[in-house]
């Protein structure tokens, strides 16, 4: 039960501070999803970045111990069929799987997203052209694009990045276009047009912050897909070539002797899973940050 004067005092109190709004970084740190995601993500990144310096054995060196042995004191995760040390291979096997999806999806997001925003904002012929190109790209099965590209250009990280970019570009572009369409009817866009702002300013200053929620979530999700996609390609032998260590390749090869040493499959699979979970948790925290606000009305 509040008295009138108390109620007024309470309402005034709420606007006393003049602090800057919480940044995205602080918002991620403030939620438990963000914290767990960051800790897990950091763990995986540390393994990928510095793991190579802590390998107990040379990762590609065969016959460092008994073949397909279970974990032991000298081989903490056991060995594979060529008697290579699994722990050493896990520590170095993450480079491609994080770098390729990250670059590919970022490029797809930048190019596809910008074109998607432009399509929605301009409408008419621009929209028709961009959307038809997206439809065309989407009509091709992802694996087919990769197979053709690799058959024509060979396997290299650049080819992998570009093909994965083309797989995700239309999908991300479509989503951004849809999100933009929901926003461009807002009067703040009309207000910007009346001020005579340039198209780029309207797209990136007025529209982009308002479609960040769905696109950030989509970005993180696509990275997860791309990680799995790269793992799949490596698993199929289309990406990283043996004997180089890679989590995807390791899962593929380890399944042959999964009953003899399950850790040869489980350890790299767990790393892929950890990375995906971390990315998703961070995406969740970011989504919550960009969609917050509505509840806390300043009463005056």
């Amino acid at each position, binding site marked *: 039960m509040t008295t009138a004067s108390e109620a007024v005092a309470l309402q005034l109190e709420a*606007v006393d501070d*003049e602090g800057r709004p919480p940044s995205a970084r602080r918002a991620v740190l403030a939620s438990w999803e963000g914290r767990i995601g960051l800790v897990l993500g950091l763990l995986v990144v540390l393994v990928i970045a510095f793991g190579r310096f802590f390998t107990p054995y040379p990762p590609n060196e065969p016959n460092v111990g008994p073949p397909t042995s279970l974990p032991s004191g000298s081989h903490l995760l056991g060995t594979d069929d060529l008697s290579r040390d699994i722990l050493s291979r896990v520590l170095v096997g993450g480079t491609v799987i994080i770098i390729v999806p990250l670059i590919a999806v970022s490029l797809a997001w930048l190019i596809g997203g910008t074109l998607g925003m432009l399509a929605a904002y301009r409408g008419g012929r621009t929209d028709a052209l961009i959307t038809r190109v997206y439809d065309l790209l989407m009509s091709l099965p992802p694996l087919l694009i990769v197979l053709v590209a690799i058959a024509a250009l060979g396997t290299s990280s650049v080819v992998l990045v570009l093909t994965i970019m083309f797989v995700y570009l239309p999908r991300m572009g479509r989503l951004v276009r849809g999100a933009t369409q929901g926003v461009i009817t807002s*009067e703040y866009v009309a*207000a910007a047009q*009346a001020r*005579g702002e*340039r198209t780029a300013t309207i797209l990136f200053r*007025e529209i982009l912050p*308002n479609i960040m929620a769905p696109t950030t979530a989509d970005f993180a999700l696509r990275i997860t897909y791309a990680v799995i996609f790269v793992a799949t390609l490596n698993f199929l032998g289309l990406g990283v070539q043996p004997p180089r260590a890679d989590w995807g390749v390791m899962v593929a090869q380890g399944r042959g002797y999964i009953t003899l040493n399950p850790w040869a499959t489980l350890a790299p699979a767990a790393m892929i899973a950890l990375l995906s979970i971390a990315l998703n948790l961070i995406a969740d925290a970011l989504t919550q940050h960009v969609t917050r606000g509505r509840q806390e009305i300043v009463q*005056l």
Partner: protein
Amino acid sequence: MRSDTVLEVSDLAVGYLRHDGSTNQVVSGVSFRLERGAILGLAGESGCGKSTSALAAIGYRPLGSRIIGGRSLLGDLDLLALPSSKLRDIWGSRIAYVAQSAALALNPALTVGHQLAQPLAIHLGLRGAKSRARQLELLEAMGLPDPPRALRRYPFQFSGGQQQRIALALALSCKPDVLVLDEPTTGLDVTTQARITELLRAIVRELGVGCLYVSHDLSLLGTLADRLAVMYAGEIVESGPALSVATNQRHPYTQALLAAVPSIRRPRVLVGIPGRPPVSVVHDSCAYVPRCPYAQPACVEAHPELRDPGDGHLARCVRLEEVERQPSPGHELARAHRKPDVLLSVHDVHCAYGRNEVVKGVSLDVRRAERVGIVGESGSGKSTLLRAIAGLHRPSAGSICLRGAELAPVAVKRPRSVRREIQLVFQNPDSSLNPRHTIFDIVVRPIRLFRDDVPRAGERAVVQELLDSVKLPTGLLYRYPAELSGGQRQRVALARAFAAQPTVLLCDEVTSALDVSVQATILELIAELSEQTETAVIWVSHDLAVVRTIADRALVMREGEVCEEGTTDELFAAAKHAYTQQLLAAIPELQPPAAVAEL
């Protein structure tokens, strides 16, 4: 209980659950009675608990709300003690409810006939030919043209007013005893509103239903209702016969609320209510004290009770006898000092959406520091005309000149100085302020674009000065729009417009989304700022009284054409065009008995 009482609500108290499990009480001690064939008006600003009370009275509990106490007797049944399963039999048959937006209340995927058939089958067991006969009878009673055809059509094929008639037909289909209407005509044009309220009054008398009409519009309720109750902070602060409450206010809040309503008979006189209502029920003092000009020490010592001086017109005020004798407050708005030179000149402008021409040759001259109103109903082309002036809509023919220089049809092609001089304020600040930008970012943008005199380091001071000039409290600089109230947001939009130091301010229904008391403060502000800065204002609105209050000169638009134009004094005193007369007649206008005799 008297025989003609259909619903008796006593001591109703409602609260909402907070996140921490405690209850925020929003309605306290509300009692009223609905009688057959009579309309009870429940008035108040948004957040005063009127809709919550109306819904709680018929036993409806929205998610998160708790009925703390009270009774609501429908005959011998206490609605508040009944389980939802029992209530469902009563709702729709004995109690009907009409929501604000008929467009949302009607199912867009079902024909009108299908929707009307449902309650008839469920509650009355009518099917086939009998049901159809009743449906036709209902639509006919609601004055819908061609009922047999209407039954086969879908809700979206009707206009807003017709949709509300269908919603009303649906509500009355089972001959209810109680009819609850929640802002049923808000958002409709004045002429449509007048037709619906007229119909409603006839139906209520004829069918003998007890009607509760919730509205923020005191002048509408004053003319429509038989009895009137005014709510503030979850309590009834004044109640009595409608005419008595409307002409002889005994509570300072009702008095202030009426003074905030723009009237076509009191040109330019208006006063807003400072501050905001409390968010929950106040128990140990008078809830209105912080905003009350009559407050005394006695007002904070105890919570006043509803008091009846002997004529059935109650008020919750210790000084009601004095308040009643005080003249209604109000002062004249700052007057525009129009200069002789023509600033903006619109010549024979045509605008179209595809093949559909919505502005058909409008010409208009605006002089420096003049305030011009453009009045019209929805679809009259008034907003499109404004967008064409702002460079947001390319006219299909005609010219727009600023100081004699013809303007490019789209804003980007116009020189920077022109874009600075013409500023636009939109109807809905929810949509016109980017929700992801802070108030500082929003207001600083035009300064960066148009004001070379402000150095980067001085921006913050200039923005703060602008926020002060629109009377926003300090400390909002880095807030987001969602953290502000509707009135505050519209002030931010105004600050952004004035940041560019315009010479023409285009206002598109700027106050129509706001409460009357907030509208009054915004009108005061615009009058003051435009007078100080010698800015010309083009004010587009469907509300004639608002235009009468703010503008010196007005144009009446209908179907894309100007049908009458003149100074507001002439136009409203002696309208020549039939359409203007019709618009004027449709406005529910409260007037003291003396004024009625005068006319």
